Structures are given as C-alpha cells and as structure tokens.
C-alpha cells in the first residue's frame, strides 16, 4: 500500500515537522482545547448535581433502568477497538499505512477506554461504594463480588484492556520521547529523559524493543475481539428479548471497529490540518482507513439483517415484538437513523473519488459515529421499554442531565487527547521513518527547503 504513496518529504524531515507542533501549537489548537474544557465542565456540573440529588435526575425509571449512560459506555469502549486493531493487528500483518496514524489511534484507544470506564461509575446508584465494591478485594467480612455476573467480567475486561493498551502505547512512545529529550533543555529534558528510560537508540536496544513491541502487539490482538464480546454479554446474558441473542459478540465487535475507524478518521483529519502533518499523514493512509470502515459497515449491515431474520425465524413472539416495534414503533427514528448512518451512507465509500474527497468522507465518518451511538441506544432502550408484560411497558427519552454528561464525556475525551498532542508526538516518528523514502539525492535536496541534515 505505501508503495503507492506519493511522498513529498523524506525521513530527514520527520522530526522537525512533527515536533514543531509540540513547541508552538497553532491558535486553533488552543481554541479546540478551550472548547473541550467547556464541554468537560458541563459534564462535571451535571454529574455533581446527580451525585448530590440522586439518580432520579437521570430521568431513568422503570422499565428502562439503563439508558444513555450505558449507551455511552458501550460507545466509548467500541471507539477504542479500532485503535487496537490498527496498532496491533495491522502491525502483525505488516500493513504499512498504519504507521502514520497508529499513534493517534492508540491514544484514542487509551482515552476512549478511560472515558468508557467512567460510565459504570456515573451509572451506579451508590458511587461512594461502587469503585471498591466492584473490585474483588479481600476483606474482613469475606464478601466477594458475584463472579457469575457479566458486569464483573466487564470490570476485568476493561481493566485488562486499559492496562494492555496503555503499555503498548507507551512502549511505542519511548524512542520518540528520546528524540524530544535530545531537542529540549532544562527541566523538560529531565522529564522526557525519565520518561524515555535512557533510550539511546543502540542496535541492542532496538533489537529488544522490536521483540517487546511484537509481543505486546500479539498480547493486544485477542483483546480486540474479547473486550467487546464481553461488553455485549452484559446484554446477551440476560433473558431480555432483543438482548438475548448469540449474534451479539461478533456483531458488537464489528460495530466497535466500524465506529472506531470512523472516529480515527474524524480525529486525524482535523489534527492533520491543525498540526500541519499533511505531508506525513497522506491521503492514501486515510483512504485505507476508509476501506476498513466500509468493510466493517457491510459486516454490521449483515448483522442487522441476520438479527431481524433470527427474531422472525425463532417464532418467539416477545422477540419478534421487540424487533417489529424497533423498526416501526416510537423508536423508529433511532432505528432508521442507525440503518442509514451505518449501512447506507458508508456505501458511498465504494467510490474511489469519495474516498479521496476528504470533506465528503469526513461527513460520512461523522454520520457513522452518530449512527453507532444510535445503534447502542437503540439496542439498550428499545430492548427494555416493551418486554414480556404489557402492564409494565413504558417510554424513555434522554434527560438533560444525561445529555450534559454525554457532552461532558466528549469534553473529557478531547481534553486528554489535546493535552497529549501538546506534549507527545502525534505521529509515531520512529515508525513513520520505516515507510518513508530515504533522504533525497543532492539534486533534489537543493529543491527542498528546510531539510535538516542532522536528522
């Protein structure tokens, strides 16, 4: 793939171009950071009110006990998956295009999982007990968590995922941190020196690094499949019609990768412009990400179809009742938004012209993000409103508190992402150099301004 990439820079330009963003960010960067802080504060206020006054503020009520918070939880965990897919699985497959976007994808994974991890805490009734009661800690009362509950499996899945992605991401950062250390002075040099663990770039170090990086990639690979499977079991393990289906694990994994790839695109395109990385994150790399989006979109479309078919074919009236109402009942708007955003609009990506037309492709990716949020909302809410006994049917719409916390979660995610952009290289410099052309010949070098002979 990268053989077809038309590079206009060589590896000697990489360090200067990428680290300039750390030294002197654009104005747009500060604007984006401020916007994310405002969103975060909205969420913080809403959560504080909810903790002080009670879960009643969330607007949930019988029979819908899970709403926007769990939707957000599943959404954010899903976002993370594409990051691991791009950084770990595509590394093992030696897909070269990943090298320009893998750092941002991994950062996205780490921050998305941290954001997701907040939602079970926002969701529970007694936040003041939940964080340590949910952990299987030995205690004098000999009380243990219920190991048969999928919610506990979730605790293990998410904490494992966060640990592995954090280590993988950090390990990839070490050579780049050493490059920054060599450029800066004073306290910053000390801090970056400590963070890069005395990396010198010797052959011996690279040898160990490559082996370790490969091992971590192999360790992260099964997590791409397992984590969202376990998240789907939160729903599939119950007997609720509309939730209790065996298709959920693969369906959720495909959906997670779809939303994640769309999110990578949604993030990388503005950052590429904000940090002037157009020469390093090439349109060909972005196009490859779109192809992955298209692939997973078709898998998701197939899953939607099969889910309906099985609901009808099972002959279970409760199951079919849920599905019928999902498409035609009070939640039909959510359902059809989901279908159009996730299955219909991405079909435009079959066209090569659309894939290379960044504004159109960007709009499609934003729509996919919206559609994937609606998918989770649709599954969770429409599965709960109308189940076995008509007497206990109900209706639910998101409340102001829930929406404010959702806005806050985006603020939280982008806040950490922008902080990351300010202090760490947004593109993996050491890996980018593996796929970029060697320094130009002396004739060509004269033509290129600002080439750094020392790099």
């Amino acid at each position, binding site marked *: 793939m990268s053989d077809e990439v038309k590079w206009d820079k060589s590896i000697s330009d990489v360090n200067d171009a990428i680290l300039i963003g750390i030294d002197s960010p654009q104005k747009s960067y500060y604007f984006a950071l401020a916007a994310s802080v405002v969103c975060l504060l909205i969420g913080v206020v809403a959560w504080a009110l909810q903790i002080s*006054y*009670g*879960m*009643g503020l969330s607007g*949930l*009520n*019988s*029979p819908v*006990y*899970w709403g926007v918070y769990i939707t957000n939880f599943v959404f954010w965990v899903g976002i993370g998956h594409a990051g691991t897919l791009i950084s770990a699985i595509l590394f093992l497959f030696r897909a070269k295009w990943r090298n320009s976007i893998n750092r941002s994808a991994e950062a996205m994974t780490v921050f998305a999982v941290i954001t997701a991890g907040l939602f*079970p805490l926002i*969701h*529970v*009734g*007694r*936040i003041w*007990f*939940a964080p340590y*009661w*949910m952990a299987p800690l030995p205690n004098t009362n000999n*009380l243990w968590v219920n190991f048969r*509950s999928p*919610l506990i499996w979730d605790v293990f899945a998410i904490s494992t995922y966060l640990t592995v992605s954090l280590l993988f991401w950090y390990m990839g950062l070490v050579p780049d941190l050493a490059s920054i250390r060599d450029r800066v002075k004073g306290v910053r040099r000390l801090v970056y020196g400590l963070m890069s663990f005395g990396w010198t770039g010797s052959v011996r170090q690279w040898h160990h690094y490559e082996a370790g990086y490969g091992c971590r990639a192999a360790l992260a690979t099964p997590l791409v499949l397992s984590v969202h499977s376990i998240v789907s079991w*939160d729903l599939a393990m*119950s*007997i*609720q019609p509309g939730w209790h289906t065996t298709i959920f694990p693969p369906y959720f994994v495909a959906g997670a990768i779809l939303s994640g790839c769309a999110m990578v695109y949604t993030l990388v395109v503005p950052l590429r412009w904000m940090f002037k990385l157009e020469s390093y994150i090439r349109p060909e790399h972005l196009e490859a990400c779109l192809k992955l989006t298209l692939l997973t979109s078709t898998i998701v479309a197939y899953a939607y179809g099969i889910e309906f078919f099985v609901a009808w074919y099972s002959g*279970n*009236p*409760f199951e079919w009742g849920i599905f019928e109402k999902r498409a035609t009942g009070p939640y039909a708007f959510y359902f059809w938004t989901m279908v159009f955003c996730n299955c219909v609009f991405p079909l435009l990506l079959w066209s090569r012209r659309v894939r290379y037309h960044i504004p159109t492709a960007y709009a499609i990716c934003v729509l996919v993000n919206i559609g994937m949020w609606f998918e989770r909302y649709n599954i969770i809410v429409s599965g*709960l409103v109308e*189940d*076995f*006994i008509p007497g*206990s049917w109900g209706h639910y719409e998101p409340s102001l508190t829930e929406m404010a916390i959702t806005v806050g979660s985006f603020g939280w995610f982008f806040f950490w992402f922008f902080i990351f952009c300010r202090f760490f290289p947004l593109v993996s410099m050491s890996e980018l150099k593996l796929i970029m052309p060697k320094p130009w010949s002396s004739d060509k070098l004269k033509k290129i301004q600002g080439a750094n002979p020392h790099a």
Partner: protein
Amino acid sequence: MTYNRCVGTRYCANACPYKVRRFNWWTHKWGEMGKRLQDRNPRALNPDVTVRTRGVMEKCNMCLGRLRDAKHQAKQFGHEMVRDNEVRVACQQTCPSDAIVFGNLNDPNSRISRARKDHRAYLLLGGDPEHGHYGLKTLPNVSYLADIIQDGHTQEGSHESGHN
C-alpha cells in the same frame, strides 16, 4: 436481596421479566413525615426491614420479617411447620376484598396449596416453552387464578387471564 450490599447497577431490574423491582432514585424525606421523634427516625419505621438509602434497588420480600417471626414461633411451640393464619403478609392484611392468599406450600392442606392445585391457577410467564407456552420457566411462587367467563358460543367455560 441484601440492601446494604447493593451499589445500584440496576442489572437485576433489567433482567426481571415481571419488572417488579423498584429503585430508590431519590433520598426519601423521612424527616418530613411527622412531628414525633419516632416518625423522624428512619429506624423506627419498621424495625424488621433494613432502611434503604438512595441508589439501592428493592423489591417485595414477601414480608421476610413476619415470616421469620412466624417460623421462630412455630419452632417455639414445637410445630413442624408454619400453619395457615399464623402469618399474614402486609398486602394480604390490607386487601379489602381478601383476594390474596398466603401460606406454606410445603403443607399440602394449607389454603394456598389447595388454591395452587386448582385448575384455574396459572403461573405468570412460568410456562414451559417445550410445551408450546411462551413462558420463561421462572417457576414463580406467586400464582394467579384465572377468571372464568361464560362463552356464548361453546357452552363451556373459557379461560381468560385476570388478577385474582
């Protein structure tokens, strides 16, 4: 359920096919209930039931405190089991039409045992999917007695579900 161990994930309420669980969304205003000291002290409301704070799930516990009392009493008197009328649950006690029967299913002669064996008795969602009933095999301890409505077409009685 153990109220003081609950963190309120509300998973049980989602999973409940009868949707009988209720969640404490707000802090109850115990202090506004009365002027007397015992009305303001939450522990005075019902000494048999743990006080539920906000953020905790709850459901009918079949008057567990009363059952315990009745069992202790039966043991003290040397009875083999709790007999009819030795315990009455709160809803039964207050039901104006006396529609609720509560008792010991292990006692074959109790009123509830006889009522449950009645051909009108059915279990809500308790049917057996293997025999064409779209139930969940929850095998609930609560059974209802179906209304019998005279069907104009067939002289025989047809069953229609109704609360009893």
